């Protein structure tokens, strides 16, 4: 459904007298299969939005190629526009008009006739539980209601693929769960969904496949289960004060049962071990011999954050 090769984009921005170049996206290769929910996971500034805007024809790539929904991004952007839907990270509605008016206009901008546009708007309002507010001005909506209108706008023309840039940011847990259901429903209707997120649980629970992006590059790709399986064994998180962390790291790094060790920015260590149950007593014994106070110790199965940590050396939670 989407195939990209070496997609690149840099921005020039002026800061005072100097012009700085930001390499926002530095060579992205992607394959998105039809009918899947594909997730783009990465910290702020990773280049997720920039990649999406390129794929949605909003900005021209500096280099690379892409086919989106069967159309060539560079040669036929007009055809790409007809086949995709795009929901931006920020809002996309006028304050002074109603959700129904927005949906009708948006459908008509895709060339849909007036009567059909009204029928589709009514269906979309019902599907996104907006009927109750449909004829109230958008400025009176709550954040979650506005977000639902944004997404309804993105799919009003029944595109083959829809890009959702952080669809659940700013939603309360209940609205988030609701949004997940709605996104799954789109998949059930045969739509391909491309979402970005920096929520680990969202990528884990919602996405069929994910790409982890950092500093404009894709650092890992696969199903959530595959990615986690790459990290064999268990993860032990050791809570320590910032001051004690380097000493503890030195002590533990040389232990045979520690496969890999990462230092956390806020203090503490994350240890990748083969067998958590046997490693914990050994860790305690090792630290007991020195005068290090540990505040907590925790054993868990590898999460996507651990995947991110091993690929980038940073935790997504901290960045």
């Amino acid at each position, binding site marked *: 459904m989407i195939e990209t090769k070496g997609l690149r984009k840099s921005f020039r921005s002026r800061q005072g007298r100097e012009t700085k170049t930001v390499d926002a996206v530095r060579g992205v290769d992607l394959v998105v299969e039809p009918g899947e929910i594909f997730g783009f996971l990465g910290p702020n500034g990773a280049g997720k939005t920039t990649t999406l805007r390129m794929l949605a024809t909003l900005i021209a790539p500096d280099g690379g190629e892409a086919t989106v929904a069967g159309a060539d991004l560079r040669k036929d952007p007009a055809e790409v526009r007809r086949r995709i839907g795009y929901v931006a990270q920020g809002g*996309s509605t006028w304050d002074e*008009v109603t959700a129904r008016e927005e949906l009708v206009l948006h459908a008509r*901008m895709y*060339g849909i006739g007036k009567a059909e546009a009204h029928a589709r708007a009514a269906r979309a309002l019902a599907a996104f539980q907006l009927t109750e507010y449909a004829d109230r001005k958008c400025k009176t909506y709550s954040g979650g209601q506005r977000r639902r209108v944004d997404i309804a706008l993105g799919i009003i023309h029944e595109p083959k693929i829809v890009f959702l840039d952080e669809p659940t940011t700013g939603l309360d847990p209940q609205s988030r769960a609701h949004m997940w259901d709605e996104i799954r429903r789109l998949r059930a209707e045969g739509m391909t969904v491309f979402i970005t997120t920096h929520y680990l649980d969202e990528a884990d629970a919602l996405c069929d496949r994910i790409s982890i992006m950092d500093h404009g590059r894709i650092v890992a790709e696969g199903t959530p289960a595959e990615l986690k399986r790459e990290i064999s064994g268990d993860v032990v998180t050791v809570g320590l004060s910032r001051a004690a962390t380097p000493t503890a790291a030195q002590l533990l790094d040389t232990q045979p049962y520690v496969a890999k060790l990462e230092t956390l920015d806020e203090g503490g260590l994350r240890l990748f071990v083969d067998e958590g149950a046997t490693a914990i007593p050994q860790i305690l014994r090792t630290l007991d011999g020195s005068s290090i106070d540990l505040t907590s110790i925790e054993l868990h199965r590898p999460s996507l954050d651990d995947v991110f940590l091993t690929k980038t050396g940073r935790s997504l939670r901290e960045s």
Partner: protein
Amino acid sequence: MKLARDTWLIFQRQTLLLLRNPVWIFVGVFQPVMYLLLFAPLLKPALAPMGATSDAEVYRVFVPGLLVLIAIFGGLFQGFGLIAELRAGVIERSRVTPVSRLALLLGRSMRDVVSLLVQAVIITVLALPFGLRVHVADLLLAYLLLALIALMTSAVSYGVALLVKSEDALAPLMNTVAQPVLLLSGILLPLAFAPAWLRRVADWNPFSWAVDGTRALFAGDVGNDAVWQGLLITVMLAALAVVWAARAFARSVR
């Protein structure tokens, strides 16, 4: 055909937004009326040396100038609305659809042209009791000239707004453009009595030609060279402005 349909869609939405904003309607109608009722009487002594002694003559000079003034300023400040739209994300949302980029501009500029024409009609009608008389055919031609001016200035304003993307930059820019244009066009006072050097500078101001053309039409002098010259200049500039601004809509925006 797609262009006409798309332009109509954007025009409808923009008109709806205008009608939902009562403050705008108030400002748009009452400001020019104030000029007409409070400023024109002040001009009577000032225009006396030119032979305009009766109310009718004063309004025949002043009303066309006022109309051009409204067309220029009304147009130049339309960009502010567009910056608000940029921020709301509606421009980006429009740009992912296959809607014509030229229509994104024309739909907006047409709204500006129509609202200018409504203002122009109100002012013309209000000036009638003061003795303003003008032939319908001449008046329609004058309105055409005004529409072209509004099209040009609003397109320029939209194009600049898409370039600078912030009100803080747009406001001083538009003021700097508007001021010399205003002073050198003889809008409020004809340049007939200006020193020769000032008149030569004004010859380079396209709006000065447009004002002369409009005045000639209000004076019933269709045959005057100023009429076709003013029309030709504004048609060309309006076309240039539209092409340039439509390209700004097609380029990436954020």
